[in-house]
Each structure stands twice: as structure tokens, then as C-alpha cells.
């Protein structure tokens, strides 16, 4: 059965801290690894990763995929209270199916 695991499940930090969120996957026919940010509403897309070792960056957020280790990390530097959200990792498989992890709940305190 396809599975995506995230750690930690919950994290509390202070503004200015740097955080690293982890995602590991066990899926057949792996196609891509996606990161989403979910606040009160629907998930919003952050990154899609298909190639190992190539970092994607957007402002203070960055992510990288390690296909050998079947994992990905999402880094957030200089965290702000607005970064408080649930961060979802999903694995895309051929056939356009997506398997989501449980999410990491990040709380950034002022």
C-alpha cells in the first residue's frame, strides 16, 4: 500500500527560527513529490519535485528531493507568524494519483 509519512507531526518555534520538515514516501510508480501549505482553507501549492538533488526555492522556503532515500525536506528560514500552518507532503504517482501524508502542524510564536 502506498504510504507517505511526515515528521514531526507538530512543531512549535519562535519567530526567526529555522525549521526543517521531513517527508518520506513508499509508493509504486513514483512520479513527483509535492509540498502544500494549508491554513484554514484548502491546501495551496508550494513546490513540486521530480529530480533528486535539485533545490527549489521560493523566498524563505526551499525544498529538495532525495530519491535514493525516498525522502524530501522543506526548509523555512527566518520563520514568521504567518508561516503557521499545516504543511502537507504528497507523492504523485503515474496515473495522476496523489497520496498525502498526515501533515506537520507548524506554530510560529511571536
Amino acid at each position, binding site marked *: 500500500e502506498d504510504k507517505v509519512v511526515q515528521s514531526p507531526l507538530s512543531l512549535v518555534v519562535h519567530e526567526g527560527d529555522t525549521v526543517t520538515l521531513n517527508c518520506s514516501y513508499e509508493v509504486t510508480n513514483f512520479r513527483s513529490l509535492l509540498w502544500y501549505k494549508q491554513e484554514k482553507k484548502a491546501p495551496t501549492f508550494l513546490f513540486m519535485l521530480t529530480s533528486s538533488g535539485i533545490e527549489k526555492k521560493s523566498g524563505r522556503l526551499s525544498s529538495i528531493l532525495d530519491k535514493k532515500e525516498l525522502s524530501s525536506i522543506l526548509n523555512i528560514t527566518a520563520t514568521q507568524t504567518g508561516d503557521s500552518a499545516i504543511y502537507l507532503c504528497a507523492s504523485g504517482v503515474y496515473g*495522476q494519483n496523489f497520496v498525502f501524508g498526515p501533515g506537520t502542524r507548524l506554530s510560529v510564536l511571536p
Partner: protein
Amino acid sequence: EAGVAQSPRYKIIEKRQSVAFWCNPISGHATLYWYQQILGQGPKLLIQFQNNGVVDDSQLPKDRFSAERLKGVDSTLKIQPAKLEDSAVYLCASSSPWGLAGDNEQFFGPGTRLTVL
């Protein structure tokens, strides 16, 4: 570009009642997904359509849940009869076919929050 539309945004029903949700995907997106997200968990795929055909409905509780996408555009998800454990946010998402944009990014609608009493 208009996003994925869903309605209603909120619904409260009693157990054993029926409920239906509607989704209008992004124009041109052939693939449509319905997810169930229970509080504290990641989204769980219920059903995936490619145009008007079902690609994957292996996790859809078919004794009470049904979904259709008759014309390959809009979709409805129905629960009949509802149970307490169906309380969740139901998310609709769409994506374009492989290769057109290079990546198979999913776009989510705002979701319908269902409360079953």
C-alpha cells in the same frame, strides 16, 4: 484564471440524512479528484476522474458514497445515508494532463465542511 469552485462551503445534517456536494474544476483540466480530510489528518483520495471516467475509486465507501462527472466537467459527490464519522472537509481538486504544463500540479477548491450530528 478562475480556480476550482465548490459548494456549499458548509453543511450541517443529521445522521442518516443525505447530502450532495458540487465541484467545478479549472477550465480545461481533465482530471478531477474528491478528497476527504478528517480533522488532524491529511487528505484521503475518495475518487479520481479522467474526463467522465473513473480512474480510481478504491477508497470510496460505495455503500453510501457515490460520485459522478457526467459531462466530464462538473462533478457531484453524494453521501446517502450520512454517518457521524463522515464529518470532515470534502476537497475537490483538478489537474491538467501530464505534459501540458510539465508538472502535474493539483489545484484545490475551498472545500465543503460537513458536520453530521
